[in-house]
């Protein structure tokens, strides 16, 4: 009954893994993972995105053949299960009439995680290395999709694998205290290792690059030096750079252009050094550890991806870096649209609040408060401020164009301890929910301390006019009626309380509902006669506002919490997202699920329908922002 929700766009890139950013040999397509989705993006046109969906969890590594026809991607999965490698036929990308990529085959052999992948020079073989629980090297035949042979990769964890450039049956692997060169015997179905002698140097090898003539393999280490080994003698022949000029936080990525090595370090430095002397000639700093370097075919430009999800286009001559795309690298906590304006939306993740253009999916504004975490954001109804709740118990308001700080309400909510009454760890502290009134004069905030507070907001002063203390757990959501007479707060203590905001009965509890549930989200149906809630009991529940009795209980998810809900303007449909990594589109009256969006690799933290009701935006713990198209057949 449920069909798949079409993905219209995505912001984000999971570049924490090494070499996850790939430039297609046609130099126009950038390929990178975003959660469990692989994004193929046109370098020139930001809106030209393709999504490869097939993985069930976070994509950990990727590789592409030299001719650019086949892509391999490996994933992580639950403990005790087999992690898949998927081979994709992407030859349609560079064709005259582009065709969509096709999933060729799923290769299942590694346990839990695929650590690294590499194609041989002629594209005949694929080498894969399993994660720490598996730690096997497996050689696959790309054409048939069958495993040729496998072998334990090393005694300790293996991290990287690289084929030689010309010899089709030689490859090398590196990892924690191990560096090996292998010879493949395809007829005898064997792969035989030789340990490289590195004399006294004991290193953890993270990345490798092979010189064009196959003579030397350069291995980057977590120590920050580069070790050159001879592929003939299988011994270390050189080492550098000198101690003072070493890349800090280890070498995370390495590439070779002619006689020059490009090295990306864990603290965000790009270095160009001579491959014989290892003397750095140029250094450029970028934001975040450089985990991927993707050269273009001419060797003039390369893309550098960092673990802060920034992608830079760097000119090799002079190392001039230009920020091409940026995204959240931390869990995104909230997303909000300005009132009846779909052209932009704001998200908050970690210490950042970012505003994005809905059309181009580009960043318009970024506000940062170092070392704090923003839990919730909202726009004032007139659009003259972004109000946000932070884990230090403060409410901060920012100007929407300059991003300047408008006001801070200090100690808006009391900070709680790290544990809660049931012994669990509080996922968020301080101000956990925020909701402005529709007249823009008041602000209602809910905190981890269980209090719901009403603030009178004017140009110069912010005064608390009521503090309503009834909840025993963090208040995760607040919804207000259109006429500002009543609001409802949902708390993790298993209750939702409606509060009167009128002068007739100021700031008292009107009614409450109780359930065995950590409520995560609450919303009024637009006619305000019903409430809809979700939480850790995996149910979506409809409630009567008058007497707070449950009207209908729907299974929001079979497996996991439902974290977020949003209902459209006329109440015909609503969207939900949860820890099952799915975004679901429901018909309200029928209470049935029509569409299911797959793409997140972490829990969905917030979902929202755009005011024009064309799109759904969902954000998740993996840092991705997904834009889904609401099918026209559904809205019509």
């Amino acid at each position, binding site marked *: 009954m449920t069909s798949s929700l079409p993905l219209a766009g995505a912001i984000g890139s999971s570049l924490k893994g090494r070499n996850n950013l790939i430039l297609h040999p046609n130099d126009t397509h950038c390929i990178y993972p975003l959660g469990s989705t692989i994004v193929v993006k046109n370098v020139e046109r930001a809106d030209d995105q393709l999504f490869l969906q097939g993985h069930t969890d976070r994509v950990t590594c990727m590789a592409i053949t030299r001719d650019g026809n086949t892509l391999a991607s490996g994933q992580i999965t639950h403990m005790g299960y087999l992690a898949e490698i998927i081979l994709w036929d992407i030859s349609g990308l560079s064709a005259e009439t582009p065709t969509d990529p096709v999933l060729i085959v799923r290769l299942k052999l590694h346990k839990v995680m695929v650590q690294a992948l590499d194609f041989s020079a002629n594209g005949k073989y694929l080498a894969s290395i399993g994660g720490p629980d598996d730690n096997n090297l497996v050689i696959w035949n790309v054409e048939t999709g069958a495993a040729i042979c496998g072998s334990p990769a090393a005694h300790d964890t293996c991290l990287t694998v690289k084929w030689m450039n010309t010899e089709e049956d030689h490859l090398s692997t590196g990892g924690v205290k191990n560096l090996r060169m292998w010879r493949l015997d395809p007829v005898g179905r064997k792969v035989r290792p030789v340990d490289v002698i590195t004399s006294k140097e004991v290193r953890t090898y993270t990345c490798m690059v092979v010189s064009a003539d196959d003579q030397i393999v350069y291995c980057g280490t977590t120590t920050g030096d580069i070790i050159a080994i001879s592929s003939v003698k299988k011994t270390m022949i050189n080492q550098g750079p000198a101690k003072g000029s070493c890349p800090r936080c280890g070498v995370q990525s390495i590439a070779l252009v002619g006689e020059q090595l490009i090295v990306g370090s864990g603290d965000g430095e790009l270095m160009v050094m001579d491959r014989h002397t290892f003397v750095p000639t140029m250094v450029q700093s970028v934001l975040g550890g450089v985990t991927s370097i993707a050269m273009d075919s001419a060797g003039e430009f390369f893309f550098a991806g960092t673990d802060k999800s920034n992608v830079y286009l760097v000119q090799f001559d002079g190392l001039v870096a230009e920020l091409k795309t940026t995204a959240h690298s931390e869990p995104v906590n909230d997303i909000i649209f*300005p009132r009846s304006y779909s052209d932009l939306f704001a998200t908050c993740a970690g210490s950042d609040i970012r505003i994005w253009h809905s059309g181009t999916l580009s960043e318009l504004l970024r506000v940062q408060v170092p070392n704090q975490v923003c839990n919730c954001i909202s726009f004032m109804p007139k659009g*003259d401020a972004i109000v946000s709740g932070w884990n230090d118990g403060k409410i901060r308001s920012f100007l*929407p*164009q300059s991003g300047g700080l408008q006001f801070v309400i200090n100690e808006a909510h009391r900070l709680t301890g790290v544990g809660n009454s049931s012994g669990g760890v509080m996922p968020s502290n301080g101000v956990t929910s925020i909701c402005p009134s529709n007249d823009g004069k008041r602000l209602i905030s809910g905190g981890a301390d269980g209090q719901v507070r009403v603030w009178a907001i004017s140009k110069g002063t912010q005064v608390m006019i009521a503090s309503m203390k009834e909840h025993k757990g963090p208040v995760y959501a607040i919804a207000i009626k259109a006429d500002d007479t009543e609001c409802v707060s949902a708390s993790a203590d298993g209750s939702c309380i409606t509060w009167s905001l009128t002068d007739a009965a100021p700031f008292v509890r009107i*009614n409450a509902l109780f359930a065995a549930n950590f409520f995560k989200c609450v919303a009024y149906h637009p006619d305000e006669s019903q409430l809809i809630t979700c939480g850790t009991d995996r149910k979506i529940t409809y409630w009567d506002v008058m*007497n707070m009795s449950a009207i209908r209980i729907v299974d929001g998810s079979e497996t996991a919490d439902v974290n977020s809900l949003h209902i459209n303007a006329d109440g015909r449909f609503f969207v939900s997202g949860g820890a099952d990594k799915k975004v679901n589109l429901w018909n309200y009256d029928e209470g049935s699920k029509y569409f299911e969006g797959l793409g997140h690799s972490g829990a969905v933290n917030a979902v929202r329908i755009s005011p024009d009701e064309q799109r759904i935006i969902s954000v998740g713990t993996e840092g991705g922002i997904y834009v889904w198209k609401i099918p026209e057949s559904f809205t019509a």
Partner: protein
Amino acid sequence: MATESIYNLIPQPVPPPVKEALYRSKHPGDKPTTFSTFGLTGTSKPGYVNVAGAEEATKGGQHEYKKPFATMGKDGNAVPPTEVLKKKTGGGGGAYAAAMGLSDQTGAFLYSDRLKPALPSKEELKQVLKASVAVKKAEPKNFVTSNAVENILAVPKREPEPINWFQKPHFGTTPPYLVKIKQEIADEYEYIRSMQQQDDSGVPPGMKQLPEEERQALVDALKSKWQDVNKAYQGSCVLSLKSLDTIGKVKRKEMYEAQLAQIEKDIEKLSRKVILVADD
């Protein structure tokens, strides 16, 4: 400082600048500038031209600027040196003579031809004065006679006629202005009295009757308030007996009912025909 708005964050696309056509002045290029002094040398209009900034090039002066012969003489005017102008053969007299038609007059020019007669001399003037004084002395004025003659011939003065007060209009009656003032005073008293009589008609002193439209407005407002309170009452959770589980709910129910009863009472009171309200 203009307040910021999220709705202005997205920069609007700037339209490409439209290239305008090459500027061509509507004024003629050969127009002399205002107060131009070009080409005016030797003309009858010295100094400058086109003070008003006219479009058309204006002529400089009465005479055209002709100086092509300034150095070389007139074209075809090469008179042989032998043919010089002989003495007393020209017209003579210049422009004046030409104007007076004297140009063909032969003979030398004489100033005496155009002189006026000489003014009388000092001696002649003395003679004339002496003669007039002598005439006056010969005939002295007889003031007595002349006075008598004047008085005899004079017309006697007329006395003004005395007013006959008995003939005056309103004789023996009260003057109209007094009647008018007395009438005004009486009217004033009458008006005050009528006012006082009106006040006495049913309304006690210090009170006034509420106008009908004001009363109706009050009743309407009370009715709409009753509806608001009733809506809140009906919409709240305190209706059913089952849900009256807390003191707060019971109190709220009572509060709503008391409010509704009070409003109903007020409406009833205001529904009477005559409503008197105290002044101030």
